[in-house]
């Protein structure tokens, strides 16, 4: 690990100001992804601002009947919250499908959103990677790409967003509340939070430098049958090859987002609208612009089959 200095911030605005005011500074929440990357010298912050004392660890009802989840709420606490289990089950299901019990106890809501890709070429510092070292090239193109993205990619990057939680948040139309160094707050729709790689795959989110996530908001419950179905190389503790987050209403309409296939949770209005027609109609729309590699084109067929199983689970015959 490269040397760094450490402080515990006393307020969200002070934390944002501390990171904005020092080049190379980063926020530290759970640290489960950041410390891993620091040990590999993929992340080399010069200063860490620990946000554990900011009282962002509560889940509260919002005035409109939804929930506001503090940025520092652990993945375990969010998955186990009685209101989430009852009204936002797809979120609980997605969280418990990811990582291990130890990691979920430490990992936070905001940190989970900000986790970096697990592209093997991002992790291997001997390889070119436009995300790790802008302008160095992409070793994944023409490399081992079985786990990588099939849609939303660019000629500069085919990495996937690896998480499960955000796929459920996408289908729930969640918002991301932030505060900047001047104390100004805003809400970013989750749909607009993760960037497509384009020519700048190192710019992964809509956050400005020093902008701190303070909460994730969930709109009022929409009912329906909540399913998160994840396909991976082993039964537990592995990243998704393909995952499906779905909320399906009794009339067959609903919402669906896919994980493990794109640089962000993948959802489209056209694909949602096709849900009553069945899985093939949905994925024909969701993956119409797919550009898979020979190694990962199986993910499109797998997405169709995973969604078919999801629909069957939501509407038992």
């Amino acid at each position: 690990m490269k040397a760094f200095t450490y402080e515990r911030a006393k307020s969200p605005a002070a934390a944002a100001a501390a990171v904005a005011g020092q080049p190379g500074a980063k926020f530290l929440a759970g640290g489960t992804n950041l410390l891993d990357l620091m040990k590999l010298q993929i992340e080399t912050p010069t200063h860490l601002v620990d946000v554990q004392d900011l009282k962002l660890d509560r889940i509260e009802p919002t005035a409109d009947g939804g929930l506001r989840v503090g940025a520092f709420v652990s993945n375990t606490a969010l998955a186990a919250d009685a209101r989430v289990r009852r009204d936002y089950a797809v979120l609980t299901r997605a969280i418990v499908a990811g990582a291990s019990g130890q990691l979920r106890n430490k990992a936070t809501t905001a940190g989970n959103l900000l986790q970096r890709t697990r592209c093997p070429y991002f992790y291997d510092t001997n390889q070119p990677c436009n995300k790790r070292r802008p302008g160095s090239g992409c070793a994944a193109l023409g490399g081992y790409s079985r786990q990588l993205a099939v849609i939303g990619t660019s000629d500069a990057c085919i990495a996937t967003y690896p998480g499960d939680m955000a796929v459920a948040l996408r289908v729930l139309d969640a918002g991301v509340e932030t505060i900047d160094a001047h104390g100004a707050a805003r809400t970013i729709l989750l749909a607009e939070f993760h960037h497509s790689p384009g020519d700048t795959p190192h710019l992964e989110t809509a956050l400005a430098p020093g902008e701190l996530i303070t909460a994730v908001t969930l709109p009022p419950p929409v009912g329906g049958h909540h399913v998160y179905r994840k396909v991976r190389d082993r039964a537990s503790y592995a990243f998704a090859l393909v995952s499906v987050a779905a909320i399906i209403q009794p009339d067959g309409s609903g919402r669906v987002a896919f994980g493990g296939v794109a640089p962000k949770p993948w959802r489209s209005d056209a694909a949602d609208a096709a849900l009553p027609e069945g899985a093939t109609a949905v994925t024909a729309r969701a993956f119409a612009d797919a550009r898979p590699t020979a190694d990962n084109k199986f993910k499109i067929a797998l997405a169709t089959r995973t969604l078919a199983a999801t629909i069957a689970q939501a509407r038992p015959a």
Partner: protein
Amino acid sequence: MTVAAIPTKSVRAAPSPPPGAMPLALTINGEHHRVEVDPRTTLLDLLRDHLRLTGTKKGCDHGQCGACTVIAGGKRINACLSLALQHDGDKVTTIEGLGTPDRLHPLQAAFVKHDGFQCGYCTPGQICSAVAVLGEIKAGIPSHVSADLTAPMRATNAEVRERMSGNICRCGAYSNIAEAIAEVAAA
């Protein structure tokens, strides 16, 4: 209890604080410690290299194997993926705090009885994890294999195996580990 001075053995064991070291105080297995550490020091390295509590093992050092599992603030975590400084003021329990050779924790006794290990390297992490898993089930925390998210959770074989998936055993003692945990869960 107030925070005591550094125990004599820790003074001898700890490397002299490097430039930029920061102080922290925490309670490990009921014993108070004040130390100064380089900010890069993980909780795992603090335990093993500074305090000589070598029961907690370093396997992968990247949160993939679970050998470093300890219970911090009542929750099991990977000590390798946590900075020591994140634990200022925390209470931490390691394998040394669960039982002693003369008075084994029920899970330690069950691991012996059911042969829940071969080489033993992953065992401290397995046992710390298992202690916390039984607590998580009692607290009603759901898992990936829980059929009903709103019903009370039960320590079935499938539940225990899923919840223990963050602890790898290269010797493959999984069946016996599951039996050991099942026996304590039923007690």
